[in-house]
């Protein structure tokens, strides 16, 4: 059982506060992705869990055991690094077996585990090579095999796929997800790539400026972002926002349209809709098309509604010319509302 509990963890570097009071529980065998732009503190949090960085305050527990005062090797973790950190002076075999040798395991046990994990990662034929003779993708496989060979409770991954080219990344994404699910370890995976996060995670923790803004399943984060930041960060293109003024109770004026919205007496709200949740209709927002991008699967139209940037994902068979005025109507159950003061979602 390797349930991870992060309790009130904060980290300052001099005057800079990298992490503010982080609280997060990761269930046993869960695949948790820490997602955020660079500098949001996601790597710092991972390094605190790994023991490569010390938290200024707070506690980290793994499997009911407090580990933030232990050295990395006593935490039951292993790690995959962004630049792989495959030791250049050791063969692939010795790289994968490095941690096992440090534990002074008998030779045949080392061989058995190295060969098994190398098999999992399909690199059995590379065991005698040095890292200088491997491609980026092969080094990546060695780094993962080395982490798996430790049979850890928790595996930590710091942007492990970011140095691979796009095609290889997609292939490794699926493979990594399968291998990790099979190994039954708890995984924490740091990335700035939302596609990676969406496709691999059981749960995503969206981080921003040293805080966790939302921790939920990929579809929940996508459909019901808890804050404006998440709505604007997740999704490509991201959500559209329009200012809304209160009209009758439960009615809001959005770009000249009357919309059903939350009650309560807010002075103003933000209306939000995903670009793919817009349809061409007879009534709705008047949108002036500015840029039309045919992407094959669909048509991305960047337009202007009420002076605001507004994107719509439409059927690729439609013929839309720049300058044309479109009438777009939102799918009612996909409309979300945010409070401009708190930036939080309003039900």
């Amino acid at each position, binding site marked *: 059982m390797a349930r991870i509990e992060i309790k009130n963890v904060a980290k300052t570097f001099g005057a800079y506060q990298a992490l503010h009071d982080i609280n997060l529980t990761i269930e046993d065998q869960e695949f948790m992705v820490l997602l955020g732009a660079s500098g949001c503190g996601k790597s710092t949090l991972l390094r605190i869990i*790994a*023991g*490569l960085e010390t938290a200024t305050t707070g506690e980290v527990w793994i499997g009911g055991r407090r580990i933030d005062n232990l*050295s*990395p*090797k006593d935490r039951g*973790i*292993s*790690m995959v*690094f*962004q*630049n792989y*950190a495959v*030791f*250049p*002076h*050791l063969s692939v075999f010795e790289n994968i077996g*490095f*941690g096992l040798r*440090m*534990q002074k395991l008998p030779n045949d046990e080392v061989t058995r585990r190295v060969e098994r994990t190398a098999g999992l990662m399909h690199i059995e034929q590379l065991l005698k*090579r*040095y*890292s*200088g*003779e491997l491609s980026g993708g092969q080094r990546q496989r060695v780094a993962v095999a*080395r982490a798996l060979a*430790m049979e850890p409770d928790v595996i930590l991954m710091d942007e492990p796929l970011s140095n691979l080219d796009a095609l290889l990344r997609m292939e490794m994404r699926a493979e990594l997800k399968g291998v990790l699910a099979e190994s039954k370890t708890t995984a924490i995976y740091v990335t700035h790539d939302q596609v990676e996060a969406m496709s691999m995670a059981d749960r995503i923790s969206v981080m921003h400026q040293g805080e966790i803004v939302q921790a939920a399943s990929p579809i929940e984060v996508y459909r019901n972002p808890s804050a404006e930041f998440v709505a604007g960060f997740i999704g490509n293109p991201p959500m559209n926002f329009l200012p809304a003024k209160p009209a009758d109770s439960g009615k809001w004026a959005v770009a000249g349209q009357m919309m059903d919205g939350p009650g309560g007496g807010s002075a103003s709200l933000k209306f939000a809709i995903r670009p793919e949740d817009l349809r061409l209709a007879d009534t709705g927002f008047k949108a002036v098309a500015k840029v039309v991008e045919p992407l094959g699967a669909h048509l991305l139209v960047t337009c202007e509604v009420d002076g605001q940037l507004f994107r719509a994902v439409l059927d690729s068979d439609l013929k839309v010319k720049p300058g044309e005025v479109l009438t777009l109507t939102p799918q009612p159950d996909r409309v979300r509302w945010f409070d401009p003061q708190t930036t939080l979602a309003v039900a």
Partner: protein
Amino acid sequence: MNARILPYVLILPVTLFLCLFFLYPFVLVSKQAFSTGAGFTLDNFREVVSYWKFPISMQNTLLLAAAVVPVQLALALLMATMVNKMQKGRDIVLYIWTIPLGISDLAAGIIWLAIFEQSGFLNSMMSGLGIVDQPVNFLSYQHPGVVFLAIALAEIWRATAIMLVILVAGIGLIPKEYYEAAEVFGASPWKRFTRITLPMLRPSLQTALVLRVILAFEIFAVVAALGGTLFPVLMGETYAYQFDLLNSGAAAAMALIILGISIAFTLVILRVLRVPKGATI
């Protein structure tokens, strides 16, 4: 200019310089060593090798190198690791540690002579503390061990920094991520040093050791200042052949023997510390 001949044009000046001032004199010395006026001969080599001082000066030179170089290597590694761990003041410490490099070897020998001679600092201190009744002549034939120790100390003090600067540069090139990976996978600080630092430092260790070992076989001025004739070494004998005995053929033969030893050790060092293909950073 044609890109294919440009590299050769660029290395032409240094090639000419090396030919004129290194290759040409080397050829002259070789000719001198292998001739006595009547064609090719090994007489000069026979003469110097059969001289009674040759075995002892060879033994002294090798012993000194064997005693000094490992200590210097260990010290330089320790100092380089320490400097590398420093956050502030790294440069100032490095400058201070490399000061002895700026002092000529004869001057270094004289500094240590001032410590060990009969009226030197060590004797003043020991009689001041009441350990000895009267000054001891440490650097005499009665105390060969002390003579050896004084020479070794002076060499260690003088020439460790040359290895230090090479190793500091080399350690700085090892990416931090390797140490973090080693730490996560359970390597203790000592294991990180032996399993990561040392193997990844091989190219720098090669350079430092080759340089240091060659210099150790050329030791001369420090020995002259501290040991005089009590401690004959190869380079001192070469000097004696050339300037005391005015036998430049024998001196040339000695010089070539020293060169031969240096090349042999260089090859051994390069072989032992070689980095396999594909195993570079």
